């Protein structure tokens, strides 16, 4: 199952010209700076923005080609706008029911109860929309889009209008959508943090064109793309909770390349987690150090090296096919004799658990 789209949209301010192919599963993030065309692309997928000779197929549903244009209300999609945009003349329950009523009974796969439960809005159902907080509104909007059992869910920066506290309030709900529902999600964002937490697949947009597209772990470590550079460069590793160590209050997390040791997290054994390893937290040694406080050490092979500023280099390392980034000084690189294919040990000073 894939989503294939070609759009050419000419607006006064800018031109969107994309040819897109992404998997119709998991979370795909449309990522890029403001004004790069992310929202326009999402709107084009929803049919809210029209391009004359566009093409769009979502799985086996043809939504647009040279002669056909399926209008938005006939596309089986859910859309969450940047501002919650709840209907102010309806209460929360009626907002949810508005969409559900218009979906044929045979197509209803997500029940209203399930949507309400997933977003934790059971308490709000009889409330008027203007009494809700920003975070509550956005949760209702997400539940409303979900409750119509869409074949695909589109979200346009659903968190950007919210402050940090509200963002933290909603993030777990979004993550649970990702984990519990089998609905592909296309998510527009300009926040690297959100993308690192949620996305499986990334489409980078720059000035209305696609800069790169691929699995998130790959895109984040590709030197020809901007995300693998700068202070925030980091690799993402998919892993699972392996066990807990009660004596030292630690949690062990396994990935393809070995086992991470992190401070205890109350997660069940086998729970999938995502680890974010910043390039600046990874140092390299020639031998496996034994006399060190660092617990997370993995054998790696140098894959590619690129100059980073005046004094530093960025190194892409691979362990069992999993890419990692390390940012070290040029001098260290020289002393280690770094070159492609060289075997080393990566010492990881700290790692962030994203879910």
């Amino acid at each position, binding site marked *: 199952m894939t989503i294939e789209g070609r759009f050419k949209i000419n607006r006064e301010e800018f031109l969107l010209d994309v040819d897109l192919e992404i998997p119709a599963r998991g979370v795909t993030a449309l990522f890029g700076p403001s004004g790069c065309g992310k929202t326009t692309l999402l709107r084009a997928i929803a049919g809210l923005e029209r391009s004359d000779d566009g093409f769009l197929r979502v799985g086996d549903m043809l939504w647009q080609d040279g002669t056909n244009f399926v209008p938005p*209300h006939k596309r089986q999609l*859910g859309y969450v706008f940047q*501002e919650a*945009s709840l*209907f102010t*003349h309806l209460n929360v329950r009626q907002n949810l029911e*508005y969409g559900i009523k*218009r979906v044929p009974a045979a197509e209803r796969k997500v029940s209203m109860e399930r949507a309400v439960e997933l977003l934790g809005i059971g308490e709000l159902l009889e409330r008027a929309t203007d009494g809700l907080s920003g975070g509550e509104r956005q949760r209702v909007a997400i539940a409303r889009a979900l409750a119509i059992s869409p074949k695909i869910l589109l979200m346009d920066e659903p968190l950007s209008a919210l402050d940090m506290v509200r963002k933290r309030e909603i993030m777990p709900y979004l993550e649970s959508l990702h984990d519990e529902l089998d609905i592909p999600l296309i998510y527009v964002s300009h926040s690297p943090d959100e993308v690192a937490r949620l996305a499986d697949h990334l489409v980078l947009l720059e000035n209305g064109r696609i800069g790169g597209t691929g699995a998130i772990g790959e895109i984040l470590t590709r030197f020809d793309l901007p995300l693998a550079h700068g202070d925030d460069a980091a690799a993402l590793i998919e892993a699972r909770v392996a066990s807990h160590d009660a004596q030292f209050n630690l949690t062990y997390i396994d990935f393809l390349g070995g086992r991470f040791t992190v401070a205890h997290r109350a997660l069940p054994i086998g729970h999938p987690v995502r680890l974010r390893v910043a390039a600046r937290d990874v140092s390299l040694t020639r031998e496996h150090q034994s006399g060190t406080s660092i617990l997370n050490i993995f054998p790696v092979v140098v894959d590619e090296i690129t100059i980073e500023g005046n004094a530093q280099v960025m190194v892409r390392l691979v362990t069992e096919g999993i890419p990692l980034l390390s940012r070290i000084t040029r001098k260290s690189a020289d002393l280690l004799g770094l070159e492609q294919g060289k075997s080393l040990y990566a010492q990881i000073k700290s790692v962030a658990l994203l879910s």
Partner: protein
Amino acid sequence: MLAESDIAAIAITLKLAAISTVILLLLGTPLAWWMARTRWRFKVLLEAVVALPLVLPPTVLGFYLLVALGPHGPVGGLMEWLGGQPLAFTFAGLVVGSVIYSMPFVVQPLQSAFSTIGQRPMEVAATLRASPLDRFLTVALPLARSGFLTAAVLGFAHTVGEFGVVLMIGGNIPGETQVLSIAIYDHVEALEYGHAHWLSGALLLLSFLMLVAVYTFNRRFSVVKI
């Protein structure tokens, strides 16, 4: 107290205002909807035409209508050709005049209400599977309800209070086309101040009550943007 002709004038006035308001809402809603959303380059021309009765002396408007609706005018001629009567000096003629004269009072509040709603709720409704007509009926109309109230009351009240246009095209036929405002004028000309007081007082009270109703229902909305 009220003479029989006065009561007839009140009845004709209310009937005229009610019929005109219904027609105005039926015509004004699609027009206002279209004007609120179109990016048509010459929209300003249409807006100016709709707003003309606001600035034009009613006698000018009435004069042109009289010419158009009379037996030698294009509309009146057409009516005769179709086997009907010219509209000048008939109740139907009054309705036509009132609809044109009160059009801005209905279209402008509706247009402003529709503009305030904006595109977004309609897009949301579209992504929730509502067809264009469905979302107009279930989203745009309810969200514009205060605009409708304003439009209906202003259209009604303005028709009740009209004078010049009616005088020009309706003449002053008691029991047929004589409306309140003209009956008052007749009483004053005949120095029947008692009758004029009764009718004027009734009109004043009616207008006041209608506006109170609008402001009460519309407290949350900035009304009467004309």
